[in-house]
Structures are given as C-alpha cells and as structure tokens.
C-alpha cells in the first residue's frame, strides 16, 4: 500500500476507535450492572438498590462499587464481582468501621464532598465502649451501620435520618431498651423510657426545640461512653454554664467526686431529668439534701436557710401579685408595677441557680433586692386600692351634693309654680 492509503486507513481506524470509545464511555457512565442486576433479581437482593435511592451517598454520585469495589461495567456476575477488581462483599461486623472509614477518615477525599465533616470517627469509635468491646470480639455491639443505616444513609441534618436530633434516642433504644438483648452487659435498659419523661425530651418532642440534648449530646456519638463521674458537671455545663461553674466552686464537688456520686446526677438524675422544684431543696420530705445530710449538720442547716430565703421571696411575690391583680380587677391601672414585679420573679430564678453554691450568703445577695422590689410593688397595689376607695368615698360625697342640688332645684320649681298659680 502506498503512504496515502496508510494514512487514510489510520484516520478511518482512529475515527472508528473514537466513536467506539465514546460509545463505550457513555455506556460505561450510564452502565451500572450492580444496580441493573440487583433490580432485576428483585426481592431481598433488590432492597439495597431501593434503599440507596434517598441516600446521601447516591445524591453525591456514589454507587455500589464506590464502597464494595467490583466492576459495574461488567454484565457477567463473575466479572463484576471479581475480587481482583477490588470487590468486597458484605464486610464482617468487626470490619465495618474500617470499611466506612476507607473514605470517611481520608481528609483529602472528604474535602471533595464536605470540607467541614470530621474525619476522626474511627479514632473516636475505638475509645468508645462499643469500639472497645468490638475489639475484644463482641459482635453484638453497635458499629457504623447500627446507627446510620446500611444503604439508606441520610445526612445528619436530614429529618428522616436515623441520627437526626429527634431520632437519636429511638435509634439508641433499639438495643439499649431491649432487655433481652442487653442481658449480658448488666447495665440498665430503662434509659429511653426515663429520658422520654425528662424536660429535655419534652423540649425536643413537644416544642421541636432541637437545642435540647439527646443521647449523643451527653454521651458522645462515635466515642460514646458515659462521662466520668467527675466530668458530669462539665457535660451538663455546656448549656447550664452558671450552675456548673457554681457547683464546681462549691464544697459539693470535692465531696461528690470522692464518693463517686456523679455530680449533677446525684440530685437531678441522669435520664429522667425532671423540672426542678423548690421542694428538692431544704429539709422537707421531697428534699434531695436529706439523702446525705443529717439534721444539725452544716449542710442541713444551709439547705434549710436557702430554702427559707427562696420561700420568703416567693411568698412576697405572690402577695404582691395577688394585690395587684385585685387592684386590676377593681379597674385600677397597675401595668407598671406589674411589669416591675417581673424583676422580682427574675430574682427568684437567679436565686434558684445560686443554690448550687451551697451558700446561703450567696443566695441572700439575690433575694434581698428581689424583696425590695416586691415590697415596693406591694405598696403600689395598696396605693391603687386606696385610690379606689378614695374615689368611692369621693363619689358618695359628690352624689350627696348632686342629689341635694337636684332637690333644691325641684323645690324651686315647686315654689315658682305655686306662685304662678297664686
């Protein structure tokens, strides 16, 4: 063949190759034999495909082979799931963490999808109770898929995700509330039930206030473990800053830590955290103080004093509110003293926080100004009621005058008319 013919052939071959490659490439992009095959097979084998549909992985363009390896361009099963193509079937339970973290611990890779996602989940997991037990060979403990799901993994901020704030407690309770499942571990299984009665659960489930804590906010999520008894105040103090600070400076902290009482938990419980009441303080029946303190010991006395101060302010505020309401019902305008009374109510709230110092003197610092305000507003109420009775008395006097004048005019009329007829 002459050179021109060669070149022509070459060009033709190249063109054909290009077209074929393009076809193959485009086919290759659309071609996902895993999805095709498994969908066709139906039943349980089609489940993963269905579940992937709404997952965060699929929405980022990932598919079966990105986690499981294999070759999705191959239609033949043997070729598609050949271990030489990197195919990993279902990972073993204790290999799942490494399986997921193939990507999730790779900072460079995760940066391409979500630069702010953490990449230390595996490291955290190894510090958790779950991770430690798994390392010892326990196959019943939770690993990545237990909480996040397998194929239907959604982003954490997706309300349908099993780890969305309002779903976390249910997800954890799948194991932790199952008494039969948890027998070997010898830990309580009533946490979920107790938690659901708590103020935190009410905030999340009734008010949709997702700033309230659920399991992972106190226990951690990947490094899940109960906080140490000497760290409880730190955990609660993430939100309840003042109470934690005051507690940690109070004589209770060293005492509680020494006796392994779990700090905040000792009085407030860990899961069934109810709205605190004044009855919890002092020497009464429902008091938590008397669990440890005996009558006549310093703490018992201090508790009684703090309670008495708070009760005193509450009583004063109640008295003032009552008289202001009475004045208002009687038609007097008392919105200003009523507003100012709010400050006294505020003082009660502050005083209730200050009890964590265990110091009656500290509590008094808040109670005293509150009492001042409450007394002032009480006086305003008294003044309003006095004004009202002054008005009524004034009314009686003026009515007497008015009736007197009307009578006089009447008499005058009679007089004029008697003279007219005369």
């Amino acid at each position, binding site marked *: 063949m002459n050179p021109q013919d060669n070149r022509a052939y070459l060009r033709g071959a190249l063109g054909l190759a290009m077209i074929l490659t393009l076809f193959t490439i485009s086919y290759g992009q659309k071609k996902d034999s895993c999805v095709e095959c498994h969908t066709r097979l139906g039943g349980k084998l089609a489940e993963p495909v269905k579940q992937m549909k709404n997952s965060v992985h699929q929405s980022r363009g990932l598919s079966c082979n990105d986690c499981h390896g294999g070759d999705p361009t191959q239609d033949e099963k043997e070729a598609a799931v050949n271990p030489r193509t990197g195919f990993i079937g279902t990972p073993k339970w204790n290999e799942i963490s490494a399986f997921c973290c193939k990507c999730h611990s790779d900072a460079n890779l995760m940066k391409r999808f979500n630069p702010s996602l953490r990449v230390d989940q595996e490291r955290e997991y190894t510090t958790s109770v779950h991770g430690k037990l798994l390392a010892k060979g326990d196959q019943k403990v939770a690993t990545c898929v237990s909480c996040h799901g397998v194929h239907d993994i959604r982003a954490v901020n997706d309300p349908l995700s099993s780890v969305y704030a309002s779903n976390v407690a249910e997800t954890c309770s799948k194991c932790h509330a199952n008494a039969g499942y948890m027998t070997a571990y010898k830990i309580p299984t009533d946490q979920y039930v107790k938690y659901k009665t708590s103020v935190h659960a009410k905030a999340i489930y009734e008010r949709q206030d997702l700033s309230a804590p659920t399991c992972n906010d106190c226990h951690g999520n990947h490094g899940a473990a109960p906080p140490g008894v000497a760290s409880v105040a730190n955990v609660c103090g993430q939100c309840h800053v003042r109470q934690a600070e005051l507690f940690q400076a109070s004589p209770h902290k060293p005492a509680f830590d020494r006796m392994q009482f779990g700090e905040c938990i000792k009085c407030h419980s860990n899961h069934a955290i109810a709205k605190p009441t004044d009855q919890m303080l002092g020497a009464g029946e429902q008091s938590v103080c008397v669990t440890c303190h005996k009558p006549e010991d310093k703490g018992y006395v201090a508790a009684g004093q703090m309670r008495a101060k708070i009760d005193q302010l509450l009583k004063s505020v109640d008295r003032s509110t009552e008289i202001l309401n009475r004045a208002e019902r009687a038609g007097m305008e008392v919105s200003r003293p009523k507003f100012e009374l709010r400050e006294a109510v505020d003082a009660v709230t502050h005083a209730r926080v200050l009890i964590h110092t265990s110091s009656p003197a500290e509590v008094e610092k808040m109670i005293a100004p509150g009492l001042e305000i409450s007394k002032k507003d009480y006086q305003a109420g008294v003044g309003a009621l006095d004004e009202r009775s002054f008005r009524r008395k004034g*009314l009686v006097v003026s009515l007497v005058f008015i009736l007197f004048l009307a009578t006089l*005019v009447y008499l*005058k*009329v009679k007089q*004029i008319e008697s003279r007219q007829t005369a």
Partner: protein
Amino acid sequence: MNLRAIKLWLDERLSLSTLAEIASKKEVPLHRQTIWYYFGGMTLFLFTVQVVTGILLLLYYRPSSENAFESVQFIVTEVKFGWLIRSIHSWSANLMIATLFIHMFSVYFLRAYRAPREMTWLSGVLLLFIAVCFGFSGYLLPWNKLAFFATKVGTEIAGVIPIVGRPMLRFLRGGDDVTGATLTRFFGFHVAVLPASATMLIGIHVLLVQLHGMSVPPKYEGTNVKKMKFVPNFLLRDLIGWILAIGVLAALAALFPWDLGEKADAFAPAPAGIKPEWYFLFMFQTLKYIPAKLWKFDGEVVGILTFSFGALLLFLVPFLDRSSGHQRRRLVFNVFGVLVLLYMVVMTIVGYVT
C-alpha cells in the same frame, strides 16, 4: 356700675330682651306623654359633656399607633382626674346613644315628624348616623386589641357592599388594612369632621324645634292642652335631669371604670368573642344568623343591604306616613315600629348572652 346697668348695656347691643321675650313665649304641652320631651334635651346635654371631656382628653391624647394606647394609659394613671374624664367620656357616649334612641323612638311613635316638622326629623336621622359614626371612630382611638379587631370586622362588613364597598373600605381604613393610617383618619373624623357636621345639624335641628314649637301627639291635636312655660318651669325640670345625669356618670366612672385592655398587635390572632359596641350588636348578631348563601346572593351582602334599606326607610318616614289621619296606617306604623324595637332589643340581648 351695677348689674342692672351692665344688663342694659348688653341689651342695647345684643337685643337680649328680644331673645328673652322669645324664650318666655316657648311653651311645652302637658299630657301623658310629656315625659318624652325630656330626652332630646338630655341627648344634647350628654353631647355637651362629650365635647367638654373630649376637648380635655385632646390635651393629652396622641393619635399614632405607637403612642395612642400609651397616651390613654398615661391619662388614666398619671393625669389628675384623668381616670374620671376618660371614663365619663366613654360612659356618656353610650348614654347619649341610648337617650338618642329613646328620643327617636318617642318621636316616631308620637308622630312628631308630621308636617311641618319633616326637616326636623331628617336632620335628626342624620344626627343619629353621625352619632353612630362618632361611636365607631371613637372606639378605635385607644388602639387596644378589642377595638382593633372590632374596627377590622366593622370595616370588612362595609367593604362587602357591592360596587361602592371596596372604595369605601379603603377610604375608611386609609389603605387595605387597619393600620396607624386608619387611626389617624378616624381621629380626624372624630374630632373635626363629625363635630363640625354635628354642630351644624344640631343648630338646624334645635332652631327648627324653636321655629315650629313642641309637637303634640295626634290624639291631642286640636284639643286645648295645658301648657307649661319652658322658661323657667320646664327648663328647671330639665336641669334636674341633667344634674342627676352628672351623678349617674360620676357613679359609673367610679364604680365601673372603662377598661383599657391590651395594646393592639396587628400580627396577633383575633381574641375570642369579638363583639362590637352594643348599639351595633343587633346588626352584628343578625349577620351571624343569615345563612352564607341566599339563593345566589352572598348572605352578608343581603344583610347589609337590608339594613341600609332600613336606614333609608327610617330617613323617609315623614314622607311614607303622609296622612296620619288614617287609623289603619297609624296602626301599621305603630306595629312596625314596635316590631323593629323588639327585634333590636332581643338581638342585642342575644348578642350579649351567646
């Protein structure tokens, strides 16, 4: 310089003695229905109370949505006797409308609108509408929640009238919604437009009464009824009534002070049980009972148009009842009047009870 000399001086310039003579000639017929003659003067007296207390309130009131409520609160709490002036103003408004209704019904049943007194009636009916507008515009001025929603509902109802309703609503509200603009213009109506119109119409009305003298009920017509001098006899009796009215107003202000309520909030939902003032209640209650659709017409529109038509009939009464000589016609008008009165009373009670 003594009193007599001053009197003479004034008389030479103002013809006081001529006025005194005219006044001394005015007489009031005495019969079983004489008591009704007091109600016109009582309404005028209460109107004067409104003007005086209204002007006093004007010294402190602020007609903007940011300040109105607080200014009324200020009047009631800080200003000396502010509570008294404000409560008297609110109570007297209601008493005035009550006496106005009594006056109107008594004139209707005693047929005092007969010739030549037709224009007295016409000016009177216009004064009724003005009084009701006074009440509606004044009610909004404290800018509290109840008033805000009452105004919203009231202007909404006006907007339902076909063709003119929408422009009327925008005119009343100063826009599409009840806002500070509504408050400002209601204030303008309440302290300028309505008082000017009322003064003019009251002037005409009272002048006509003096011109034509007091009317006598039909059955006494032509007979020789005893007469009483207006000055000083009837006037002094009027005075007794006015003095007692002052007493009633003082008692109401001290024992049942007018509520301030809460400041209006355009974004808050309507409080339960919104009701207009009692003189609108019978209409409001009627509208509630009319079914949503009557044949193919909107029920509310039918209701409003019926009431408007009723108002027109009221206005035209002297022309509808030309020949009051006819026994039958008198009966018809009396029965109709009694039914209307009963309906208004019953509907008002129902409105309060439910």
